[in-house]
């Protein structure tokens, strides 16, 4: 069957060009098979870190293998690959200048993949945008913000600027600032506020809640109340505990700190 196929191809193509064509096709087929095997192997290695992690490395390896196989196949067909590659080099330089930012994004994407400051599903803050990471692609990182907007951030920006990963660790601290009047008995305040933490099921017993004077302001003392929670509980604790603290202070008769100004009548002093 093979000989009949060769004979048939001999009729169609110039003499002597059949075997190189067969070789080239075999090389291309082997290249594609190898690329597929490499994709599977990389998928298995990165699969345990999430369904989309390693997607860019997978693409890059696949392109490299397919590209090498294509160049080899062209060489088998009699093309002068050296000339082609030389021309490609010139084109690459020209395109490189034209696509500087694209390349920068590409390299930043690769560095981000290597450094792994965040993964898909993490909640990050970049350039005043906070959201869940949907994808880390070669050129950009995609976020879904909490008000359900889709944000595309070029990898160059993500790589250069400060990135805060708020879900990296399993527990987080919630900080609440409580302004209280100077007349307030702080020793009396402490058990009232700590009791709120003890009764809230989302507050961790340890690390223990903290309550301390943060700073003295013109007409009030600013207290900081810090409690720890499991990271997924952060938002619900933040919303509930402020209401609970306010309710507990009101129930205990603790007056809120109101802005005040003291007027001194100098005349009456001199009279």
């Amino acid at each position, binding site marked *: 069957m093979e000989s009949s196929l060769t004979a048939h191809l001999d009729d169609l193509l110039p003499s002597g060009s059949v075997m190189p064509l067969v070789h080239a096709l075999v090389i291309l087929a082997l290249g594609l098979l190898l690329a597929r095997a490499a994709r599977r192997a990389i998928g298995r290695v990165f699969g345990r870190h999430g369904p989309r992690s390693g997607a860019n490395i997978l693409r890059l390896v696949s392109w490299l293998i397919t590209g090498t196989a294509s160049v080899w196949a062209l060489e088998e067909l009699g093309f002068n690959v050296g000339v082609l590659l030389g021309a490609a080099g010139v084109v690459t330089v020209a395109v490189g200048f034209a696509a500087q930012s694209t390349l920068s994004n590409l390299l930043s994407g690769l560095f981000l993949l290597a450094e792994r400051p965040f993964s898909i599903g993490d909640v990050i803050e970049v350039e005043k945008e906070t959201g869940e990471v949907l994808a880390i692609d070669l050129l950009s990182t995609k976020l879904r913000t909490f008000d359900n907007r889709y944000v595309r951030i070029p990898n160059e920006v993500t790589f250069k600027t400060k990135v805060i990963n708020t879900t990296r660790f399993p527990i987080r601290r919630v900080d609440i600032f409580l302004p209280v009047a100077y007349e307030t008995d702080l020793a009396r305040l402490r058990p009232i506020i700590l009791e709120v933490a003890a009764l809230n099921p989302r507050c961790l017993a*340890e690390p223990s809640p903290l309550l301390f004077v943060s700073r003295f302001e013109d007409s009030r003392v600013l207290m900081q109340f810090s409690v*720890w929670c499991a990271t997924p509980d952060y938002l619900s604790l933040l919303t509930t505990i402020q209401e609970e603290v306010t309710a507990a202070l009101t129930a205990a008769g603790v007056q809120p700190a109101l802005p005040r100004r003291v007027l001194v009548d100098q005349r009456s002093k001199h009279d």
Partner: protein
Amino acid sequence: MTASFQVGPLRLTVEHHGGEWRLIRTFDGDDTVVRVEVPAPERALEAGAVISRHGTSHSDDRLSLTPVLPDRPVVTRPEHPVSVPPRDAATIYVGSPLWVRVAHRSPPITLEDLPCMAPLTTWWGPDTTTGELCYATRTFGRLDERQIVFHPHRVITAVRIENRADAPLLFERLYLPVGQLSVLADEEHRLWTEDVTLEHVAGEEAELTLGDARDGFQRLTGPRNAAPHRLFRAFGSLFR
């Protein structure tokens, strides 16, 4: 069908209407009471009550409540730090919060596992970046079995701490992987687990060995996860 159960602080009302099981729970019960009422007394829905609903295609209204241990490890904080001298051993009695497994049909199909007291969560780890979430419990940490105060919503474990190190072992926290333990009942229907031995050699780690159930004890439920005995961080000081 309605029924009401109380196990210490947990007050649970179960209602079965056609294809639905409805569980209504609060944690405002008396610490010492265990009560079952069928049918459940008429009572208005209390503030703070948590309701969970389970749909089913089965009309079988058989219900079972089984004592189980919590679904996370328990970190016990004795009232005062405990010290075990070098090359010595001590037995400390710690109480873990009891949970109940609510199941329907026969053989039982679990509807839900419920804590018998409001669960208190804590962090167990060397720092805030590595560790695991556990349940926290306070205990007197009695060293004399005769002084144990039993509550219906607590399961007692006798933990023998063997200090094989050349330095005293001082701890303020004790980590107990209760998922590896069973719930047992003694002749007076008080709840226990198997005795546990924690062998301490160095640092804060210990190796856990499970003892056999004592004579006369009845096994009510087996362990949640039958993991092999392992070395883990069992002792800790105050988290700072």
